[in-house]
């Protein structure tokens, strides 16, 4: 079949995809360099030269990207686009984790979250199909939505003002290996040993549950 005769020709989508790819490509060097900035030695070095605080700038940039990505995720009509922006958000979140010296969590965020979980999402989006473009927003109960938004705005305002006031004023100094695989393993296999094993039960439930749910009835099987 001629590609051009399809309903949404690839050529129309390319600008979006390629711009996303370009953004990610730009992000990678930034991620790589920010690791260097975010290490404690760099932070200590930054003290002598306070003009440029690498961790803070990493935080600003990835924080802004996180919010932008989240906004785009929840406003896209097409679930595929939304999923791509969610992946973008998760990458940006990993950048924020780096600025907090949580190197292992940043890696896990990319590998497990942006990698595994989002692949699952994409798989289902593709399976279910996005033939129906849903209208954004107002469908049932404009009133209830306005009320809900108002409640969220109120909650957000209170929460954020509270967090600004109550947040710990000074962050602790952390040693060299903070957030590394080694320190994480220390916690996971000592204090968190039992939860770490128990969570495998949770994953087992998820697997068995998915099998039970997606099983067809015997009648259906006979028909197929």
């Amino acid at each position: 079949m001629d590609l051009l005769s399809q309903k949404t020709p690839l050529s129309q989508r390319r600008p979006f995809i390629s711009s996303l790819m370009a953004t990610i490509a730009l992000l990678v060097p930034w991620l790589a360099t920010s690791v260097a900035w975010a290490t404690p030695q760099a932070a200590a070095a930054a003290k002598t030269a306070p003009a440029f605080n690498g961790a803070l700038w990493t935080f600003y940039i990835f924080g802004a990207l996180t919010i932008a990505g989240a906004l785009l995720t929840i406003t896209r009509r097409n679930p595929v686009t939304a999923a791509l922006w969610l992946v973008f958000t998760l990458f940006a979140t990993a950048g924020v984790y780096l600025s907090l010296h949580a190197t292992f969590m940043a890696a896990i965020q990319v590998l497990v979250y942006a990698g595994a979980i989002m692949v699952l999402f994409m798989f289902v989006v593709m399976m279910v199909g996005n033939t129906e473009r849903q209208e954004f927003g107002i469908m049932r109960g404009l009133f209830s939505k306005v009320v809900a938004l108002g409640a969220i705005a109120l909650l957000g305002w209170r929460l954020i003002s509270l967090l600004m006031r109550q947040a710990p004023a000074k962050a602790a100094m952390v040693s060299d290996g903070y957030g590394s695989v080694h320190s994480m393993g220390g916690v996971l296999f000592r204090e968190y040993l039992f939860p770490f094993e128990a969570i495998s039960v949770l994953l087992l439930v998820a697997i068995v549950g998915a099998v039970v749910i997606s099983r067809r009835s015997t009648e259906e099987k006979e028909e197929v």
Partner: protein
Amino acid sequence: MVPTGYVLVLAAVLFLLGLVGVVLRRNVIIVMMSVELMLNGVNMTLIGFARARGEMFGQAFSFMIIALAAAEAAVGLAILVAIFRTRRTVNVDEISLMRH
């Protein structure tokens, strides 16, 4: 060094944006993605607090939450596929056979 307050506010914004998505969106896959945003807000809060205290427990907790999110997504998407098999829609409002 990043002030903890900034991190917490960013995390709260992420959480609230996810909540807005859950409330406003009708496409269930996007609603589920919004739940993922909320969980990321939680994770960032935990990691931010862990950084402020200079200890690892918050990070270990957020590690658990990532596993939990994976399990949740697997079950939720499985149910979604089961619904879609009997009915071709992914619209929250239309998923309602039962009387209110």
